[in-house]
């Protein structure tokens, strides 16, 4: 997502700094993208893309009564990439599955995000030495949030979702070192 520039339109009208500061303080023209981002961040539609064990924790357990992802508004699980916002890659990406992982990512409509869940999706995990495993899904598609664990607990998955929300609301948060 390109970062919108913070130029205020009043700067074309006058060069007087005092006026510009007052107008900037009073009239806050949020670009349309920022408003949409607030709406998007609070109702992301996950793309149910269960590969292996993490799918049970990330797609199923996190959505079910005890951990209840719908408290955050992310429970609408879509089966097709056309209607999904976030691609939750949970499980091991193998060489045979790599082409259709990339294809599904490309078939998703903008704006789209990717969460790599579990050590298999992050770096190949326990199967990194295998002849048939892609060591990390970020070798195929750009990833926005990584959730370590094998499998990560549903609470960690929810924390991953909140990281993506944080990233959507103010993109500069990416550069801030967390924790």
């Amino acid at each position, binding site marked *: 997502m390109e970062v919108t520039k913070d130029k205020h339109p009043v700067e074309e009208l006058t060069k007087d700094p005092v006026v510009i500061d007052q107008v900037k303080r009073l009239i806050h023209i949020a670009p349309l993208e920022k408003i949409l981002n607030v709406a998007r961040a609070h109702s992301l539609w996950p793309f149910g893309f269960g590969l*292996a*064990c993490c799918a*049970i924790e990330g797609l*199923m*357990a996190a959505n079910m009564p005890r951990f209840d992802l719908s408290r955050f508004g992310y429970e609408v699980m879509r089966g097709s990439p056309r209607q999904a916002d976030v691609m939750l890659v949970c499980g091991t990406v193998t060489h045979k599955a790599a082409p259709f992982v990339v294809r599904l990512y490309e078939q998703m409509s903008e704006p789209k995000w990717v969460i790599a869940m579990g050590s298999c999706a992050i770096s190949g995990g326990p*199967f990194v030495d*295998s002849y048939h495993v892609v060591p990390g899904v970020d070798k195929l598609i750009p990833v926005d949030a990584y959730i370590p664990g094998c*499998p990560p607990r549903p609470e960690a998955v929810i924390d991953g979702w909140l990281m993506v929300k944080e990233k959507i609301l103010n993109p500069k948060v990416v550069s801030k070192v967390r924790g």
Partner: protein
Amino acid sequence: MKTQTYSLNLGPQHPSTHGVFRIILELDGETVVKATPVPGYLHRGIEKLAEARTYTQVIPYTDRMDYLAGMLMNWGYVQAVEKLMGIEVPERAEYIRVIVGELSRIASHMIATGAYGGDIGALTAFTYTFRDREYCIDLLEMVSGSRMTFSYFRVGGVADDLPGEFYPAARKFLADLPGMCDEYDGLITGNEIFQARTKHVGVITPEMGINYSLSGPTLRGSGVNYDLRKVRPYSVYDRLNFEVPLGKNGDCFDRFRIRIEEMRQCGKIIQQALDQIPEGSIQAKVPKVIKPPVGDAYAEVESSKGVYGCYLVSDGSPKPYRVHFRRPSFINLGYLAKLCEGWKIADVIAILGSIDIVLGEVDC
């Protein structure tokens, strides 16, 4: 008017394939003319990786195969190593293995029940079964510290003892279990839409089931009484009495119904095991570095999907020379191609759901 058949991908990315499993369906309208299953999208080469690991390091790979019943996977592998080395597992460890194994079976059957309800369209069933599975997973987490990939078994015993608060929590869970199973019966089994969609669909005859080496609820749904815990009792199963539920006409409905029955029987088994568990050590005398004698061994365990076997070849070094896992989900799928012919697309999803496959185990 002659109609052309067309090919459709019930593809790797599909809500009802329980993971990345692909069936190329040749369809004439709605009816399946030919079905070609294509597994392999999750093939991680566990058997090749196991050859480069020591005997104890292979244990975490086993419960990433059938990640719904991790304990039973550990059991199959560990039993093969013990048979190869001729180790006698102490009494208490055997009882602990039965308790956590049956708990893992309950958790696996709960997902199978909920997912099958979801496949047929009863999405709320999934919520109920998962809510109860969380209680079952709490018990297993109390014992092993992890929710799904336990790696709790060791060659010659188990990692550590049952914690003190496990017994009251387990008894409370066992008291609620029959109520949970009645709830699933009332919610799913009794639903006539569910029955209309699953009765007399995907019928497996006993002869075909045996000929195609099917096992577990898939085979017992056709009335074949083949449950390793009864046919060749291993561990302490010969001291526990329980019945093996059998189906009558081998259709999707029977395969589904006996899974709920099996959950009730698991409750009875755990009850008896909790009553009879003796005191004592939980780990046999095993050398620090496990070097089995040269030779091979094959041992089998009844996992929630069927007979789970492990064939081990040792050349005396601390690393296994060859490890082969007999995976029930993989072999149960061998019959899917013939089973789906002639049924409609919706029935194919019902049949695939009733065989209850887990892709980590199919592709190994």
